[in-house]
């Protein structure tokens, strides 16, 4: 299991369109992905879950990836969240 805290750099945070991109990436990853903000944890593959976190620009979130491709998975997620 790999776990990392990252800052979301996208200017719109993770609302509909970026949230959909995030979920599409998570669906390509075989491992289980979880995203946490302020103690609330949601499944990375759930668009409603991701949107319900209401993640804004510069929010701090914790990503957990667990499974066979966790190393590549967490790297790809960090790259996406780091995009401005």
């Amino acid at each position, binding site marked *: 299991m790999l776990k990392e805290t990252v800052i979301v750099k996208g200017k*719109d945070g993770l*609302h*509909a*369109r970026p949230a*959909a*991109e995030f979920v*599409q990436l998570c669906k390509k990853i075989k491992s289980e992905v979880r995203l946490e903000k302020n103690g609330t944890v949601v499944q990375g*593959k*759930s*668009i*409603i879950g991701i*949107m*319900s976190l*209401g993640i804004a620009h510069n929010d701090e979130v914790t990503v957990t990836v667990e499974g066979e491709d966790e190393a590549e998975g967490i790297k790809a997620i960090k790259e996406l969240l780091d995009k401005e």
Partner: protein
Amino acid sequence: MFSFFKKKDDVIMLYKPVAGKVIDISDVQDDMFSTRMMGDGVAIEPEKDVILSPCDGKVLLIPKTLHAVALEASNGAEILIHIGIDTVELKGEGFTSHVHAGDTVKRGEQLISFDRAYIEREGKPLTTPIVITNADEKEIDIKKNISDNGDVIMELRIRS
């Protein structure tokens, strides 16, 4: 006749959340929806200014910007209703919500009202997509009714 033995929530009907012309999701002028990135479904060109619940369910999400609502139906289907195109940019102006996340709602209950004149003045189309965001995970078959006949816009059936 043996409906007694059937699981009662296998099939969920979604009714029009607002009167208006129904189009397929692929015809929406926003690629986030037309490419089904958010899920498959339909869209309505609203003729009224209140969005009603399309089924019994639970409110999962109302964003701060009040331009959308997500519901969970009793069979686990997640339904996202997004009022207008690019309306997130209005930052909540022009929208009034009547429910909160966690509320239980009945079909036909008011969810969100909107100020048509304001939204149109801001140059945002009112096209309202209604999509199922978890059809793959829950193995839900979606039967759409893209016509002006009847009040049912989608039939959601869990694959068995």
